[in-house]
């Protein structure tokens, strides 16, 4: 029996687990004791990584779906050649930008980097990721404010902070191990700001139930109170920040009366919260999708950063403006996918950066894209507009997870080629494709992930591949060879080679990891970036302890904006607000993997359901387990089973994201700067289905 320590590839905590393997079968999985993130515990998903591809398996061979929908299994050689020939021909016919790809935050950093090389540099196409759906807001907010996409915290800060403010975050369900670390903190005051009385709100010291998407007004008002009462850290503001005076002017107009009208929170309570922040010596702010997935998300995230900065709650233990990431390797994508940023968090339009990269890769500088990729929604637009004819989807399920997902299905009809690379041939998206490239779970991969607190950890092959099985990395190399990329592909020979390249990409940047020896990552406690050659290893480090940011002048920018109205606001025809989010700990996203976990299957609803306030349900004549049709401002309708609750406001509804019906209703509304979709605030109407109790 061998024991291998590897990294879970579900959420961004990226816990480490010990896999007990015998005869190439996983006998049991136990969380790694002593690993800084999870120290001997984990959630049900990681514990059941062995269930992937057991009940639902691909044939292990690529398949081609012809015009009549008939399936032909082909060899890998044929698949790679078909890919290269078809892509080449489409690009020749319609132009270089007539192809694009959509990738994921759940493949290894090495795979992301190699894809960024083949897709963005060799093919010269745009490529975005599902990280656009969750983290691009944080990335943009950090980049604008700090000068680099740099989440400043370490998870230990959850245990040391004396005042934990959670904004639009529900760790009990979404980051269970982060919640268990909060539970270790016996003295902290926990405040949850969320329109919904979530599982986390129920367990907090104080739940502030703001009106949906009134967060930016709330946060500016809070800043105003803090400034007026002089509950700010003047020294820190002067020495470490920029724009305070104009920021102060901006928030001046946010009066308590105005805030009470807009947010539903009394002036008394806002002052009380300000008081708690002031009294706290180590105040930390944490946010996730409630903030990120909005139409003014970046500015909202920055409002949180502004609060942390003006109160001097940055760069010290237990403090910070801390964004919790979604996927296990969203961080890897942000830095090394070569999509929104040039390798290593560099800029595509910076000549020095371009030279560095072209030299590391030994390629002509002309190969480096001139600008970041067009975002996900623009890719869909261009497919619908006829400009993009080929789409390559890797490890994600847009037919379910894309906002206003019917649009993706429509777009596919306009494609001449849809390639899907995934571990399942039966996802909503795989079922639509022309060419399917079967990959394998991370259990069979070698590489690395970077977690939410910048911690790099090893992904080791726990199981050996069966004959004919290829990892995403192998598939990318196969495609690269079919394209006859030539000598420059040799630098990417193996994931280890890619890791060495990644180290070079990071050199000199804030995310520098030139001091990391991959071999030492195995059976280790992981290493947070930065970790330069010669650095001393300290397990749980945070950024900005030296009070220097990554902006040219080293100061953090206080950024703000006038609140913008919801482009898809509730009105007469659609008077209710639909919120969406994770439903349970066990279900992951579109359930392609977690559907194989018996524990999860036994304890979750088989089909779409929606939470509705008791009073609203009564008004509409709906009882528990009856069905309702929800119609959205985006023009679509979905059927849900109704679960009355008192955890949400009277005119609000909440539907878990794990059922395709939910995103059938979300609108095509995006943040102006991050282009992240607004999933949390959709105007809808509700109708009872007559004779609906089945």
């Amino acid at each position, binding site marked *: 029996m061998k024991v291998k320590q590897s990294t879970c590839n579900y959420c961004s905590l990226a816990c480490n687990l010990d896999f007990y393997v015998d005869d190439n079968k996983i006998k049991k*999985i*136990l969380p790694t004791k002593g690993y800084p993130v999870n120290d001997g515990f984990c959630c049900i998903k990681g514990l059941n990584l062995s269930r992937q591809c057991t009940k639902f398996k691909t044939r292990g061979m690529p398949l081609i779906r012809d015009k009549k929908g008939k399936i032909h299994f082909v060899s890998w050689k044929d698949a790679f050649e078909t890919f290269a020939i078809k892509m080449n021909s489409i690009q020749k016919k319609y132009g270089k930008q007539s192809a694009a790809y959509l990738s994921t935050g759940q493949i290894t950093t090495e795979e992301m980097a190699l894809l960024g090389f083949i897709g963005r540099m060799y093919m010269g196409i745009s490529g975005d990721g599902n990280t656009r759906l969750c983290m691009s807001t944080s990335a943009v907010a950090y980049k604008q404010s700090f000068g680099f996409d740099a989440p400043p915290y370490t998870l230990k800060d959850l245990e040391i902070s004396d005042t934990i403010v959670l904004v639009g975050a529900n760790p009990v369900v979404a980051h269970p191990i982060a919640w*268990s670390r909060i539970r270790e903190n016996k003295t902290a005051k926990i405040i949850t700001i969320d329109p919904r009385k979530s599982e986390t709100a129920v367990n907090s010291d104080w739940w502030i139930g703001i009106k949906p998407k009134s967060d930016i007004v709330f946060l500016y008002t809070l800043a105003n109170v803090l400034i007026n009462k002089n509950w700010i850290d003047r020294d820190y503001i002067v020495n470490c920040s920029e724009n305070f005076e104009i920021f102060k002017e901006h928030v001046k107009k946010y009066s308590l009366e105005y805030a009470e009208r807009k947010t539903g929170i009394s002036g008394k309570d806002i002052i009380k919260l300000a008081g708690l922040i002031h009294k706290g010596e180590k105040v930390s702010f944490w946010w996730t999708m409630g903030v990120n997935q909005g139409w003014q998300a970046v500015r909202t995230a920055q409002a949180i950063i502004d609060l942390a900065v003006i109160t001097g709650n940055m760069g010290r233990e237990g403090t910070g403006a801390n964004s919790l990431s979604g996927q296990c390797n969203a961080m890897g994508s942000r830095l090394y996918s070569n999509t929104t940023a040039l390798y290593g968090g560099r800029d595509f339009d910076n000549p020095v950066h371009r030279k560095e990269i072209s030299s590391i890769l030994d390629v002509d500088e002309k190969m480096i894209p001139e600008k970041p990729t067009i975002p996900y929604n623009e890719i869909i637009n261009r497919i619908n507009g006829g400009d993009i004819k080929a789409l390559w989807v890797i490890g994600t399920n847009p037919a379910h997870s894309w906002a206003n997902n019917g649009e993706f299905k429509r777009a596919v009809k306009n494609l001449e080629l849809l390639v899907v690379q995934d571990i399942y041939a039966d996802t909503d998206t795989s079922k639509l494709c022309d060419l399917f490239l079967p990959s394998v779970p991370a259990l069979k991969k070698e590489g690395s992930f970077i977690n939410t607190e910048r911690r790099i950890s090893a992904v080791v092959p726990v199981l050996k591949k069966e004959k004919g099985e290829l990892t995403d990395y192998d598939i990318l190399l196969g495609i690269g060879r079919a394209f006859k990329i030539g000598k420059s592909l040799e630098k990417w020979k193996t994931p280890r080679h890619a890791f060495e390249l990644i180290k070079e990409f990071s050199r000199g940047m804030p995310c520098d990891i030139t001091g990391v020896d991959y071999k030492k990552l195995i059976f280790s406690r992981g290493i947070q970036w930065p970790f330069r050659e010669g650095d001393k290893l300290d397990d749980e480090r945070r950024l900005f302890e030296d009070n220097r940011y990554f902006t040219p002048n080293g100061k953090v920018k206080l950024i703000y904006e006038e609140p913008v109205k919801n482009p898809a606001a509730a009105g007469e025809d659609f008077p209710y607000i639909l919120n969406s989010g994770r439903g349970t*700990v066990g279900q992951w996203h579109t359930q392609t993997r977690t559907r194989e976990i018996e*524990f999860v299957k036994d*304890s979750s609803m088989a089909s779409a359901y929606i939470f509705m306030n008791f009073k609203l349900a009564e008004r509409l004549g709906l009882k528990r387990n009856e069905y309702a049709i929800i119609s959205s401002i985006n023009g679509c309708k979905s059927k849900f089973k109704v679960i009355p609750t008192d955890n949400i406001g009277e005119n609000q509804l909440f539907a878990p994201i794990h059922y395709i019906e939910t995103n059938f209703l979300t609108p095509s509304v995006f943040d102006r700067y991050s282009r992240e979709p607004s999933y949390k605030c959709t105007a809808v109407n509700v109708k009872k289905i007559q004779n609906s109790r089945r």
Partner: protein
Amino acid sequence: MKRIKIDRNRCIGCLTCTTACIVSHNCADNRSRITMSSSGRYAPIFCRHCDKPECVYTCMTGAMSKNQETGIVGYDKSRCASCFMCIMACPYGVLKADSENSKEIMKCDMCQHTESGRPQCVERCPMSAITLEEV
């Protein structure tokens, strides 16, 4: 004796208890589970260490036994003959055999072997849906 009280209205089906049980016993199987009723309500199904334990009455090797002092119904796998009468006898369908060899009964032991001696499911439940009460 101490028994685990279950408040099913607080349960959110997070399966932290299932995870805690598996981790506490260092094994591949759980000894308790969460299911959903026909109306969609969570039902934590845990061994009750019954006063009149059917599993003990039906055990013909003495592997299942009730400890009169602690009230815990214990399982001695070295005596067990894997006849599975206990699985059949439990009126609440709590028991099953191990998934690897189908030999050992997955029986809650109230985590007596842990340092604190307290059931880990109770310690880890984030919603206080399961608590230890004196009965």
